[in-house]
């Protein structure tokens, strides 16, 4: 019986993780947990997580909150941050309790940081095909809140970068996550 149980466990491991080695399974599990944690650490990720847990489509959520589907998707993708009024109607429409409401407002406060980190992770060379890169970076730039743009330009001037394209080029060339985080802290410090 015990042997049968072990066989079954091994079969499940093979089917789910494509391996039976405990170390590999642990690594895979940790990696997917880290990815999940990273994804839900932003306002958009949090919204998406709740939506999936509740078994709702983006369209249904948008209807409940009274916004367009496109806007809901932009919030989930962290391309746009909901205003405080939006957040209030979101909490009403989705029937969020006090705890979720508080979490959403906390995440909103961290949104500029997440946005900056997200654009620093952009890789313009991937969009370079057919001259799209230039336009893409200008579109990304336009999506940044005005005060973040100003802080970025002021920071850029200090190190001799005069245009937004040069600033964008600088931060998309940062080598790793640590460097990106340090850079985002530096810019946000300027914002106060």
């Amino acid at each position, binding site marked *: 019986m015990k042997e049968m149980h072990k066989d079954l466990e091994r079969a499940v491991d093979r089917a789910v993780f494509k391996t039976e080695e405990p170390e590999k399974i642990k690594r895979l599990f940790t990696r997917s947990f880290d990815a999940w944690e990273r994804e839900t650490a932003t306002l958009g990720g949090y919204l998406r997580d709740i939506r999936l847990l509740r078994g709702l*489509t983006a*369209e249904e959520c948008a209807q409940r909150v009274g916004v367009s589907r496109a806007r809901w998707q*932009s919030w*989930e993708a962290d391309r746009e941050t909901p205003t405080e009024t939006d957040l209030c109607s979101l909490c009403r429409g989705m029937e969020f309790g006090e705890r979720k409401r508080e979490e959403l407002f906390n995440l909103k406060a961290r949104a500029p940081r997440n946005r900056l980190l997200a654009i620093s*992770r952009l890789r313009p060379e*991937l*969009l370079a095909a057919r001259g799209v890169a230039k336009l893409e970076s200008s*579109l990304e730039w336009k999506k940044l809140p005005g005060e973040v743009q100003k802080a970025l330009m002021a920071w850029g001037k200090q190190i001799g970068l005069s245009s937004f394209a040069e600033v964008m080029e600088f931060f998309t060339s940062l080598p790793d996550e640590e460097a990106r985080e340090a850079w985002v802290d530096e810019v946000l410090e300027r914002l106060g």
Partner: protein
Amino acid sequence: MVKRLNEDRDELIQEFDLRYPRLKNGRPSEKVESVLTDICGFHVVDEPLVPGQLAVCDFSSRTVIVNSDMEQLAHHKTNVELLRLSTLAHELGHIRLHWEEMASGCSLHYLGDTGQFADSRSYQKEREADLYAGLFLVPLRELLEQRGVQNLLRSKIDKKQMSVGTLWNLVYREASRFKVSPTLMKRYFLEMRWVRQGPTRKSGLRELRVRF
């Protein structure tokens, strides 16, 4: 190829139906966006893109950006919502078929066939994504049940040509039945090798002929 694509499509639809049993009876075109976001884990956002470009699929940030100015690119008679859904299905094709090849890059989807392709594989990938989109939105077994399509296949077997007008009518009729864009339906017929495309006629329509 068609068999493999159909299997993949059925798997995705099954996963969608399990997640949203109340939407089970909807058309595939009503499911495509949720399949992209909730089954494949991509974001779909509508934002302005370069003129002529329908969508960008960025694998690194798992985002499909659909051109929000689509109505300015398309012909005034084009149903923009159908064009958008067909575009999403095309991007889904890239995600399902070319993930490994493009995991570190992005695919750009342009309106029409005018884009210049870097190499023959790029062109082939676009055609594969078109076929996937067609099979996703228009289930082959349902399409084969349509009398017009049966007539077309009979003509193909009997090597009997059909008129250009009849073929275009068939494309438009089936496109409207399955709620997809006529361009996608035409590409479906082309990729299935049921028809071939000739030069543009005086009427402005491309010549369509049964492919023997």
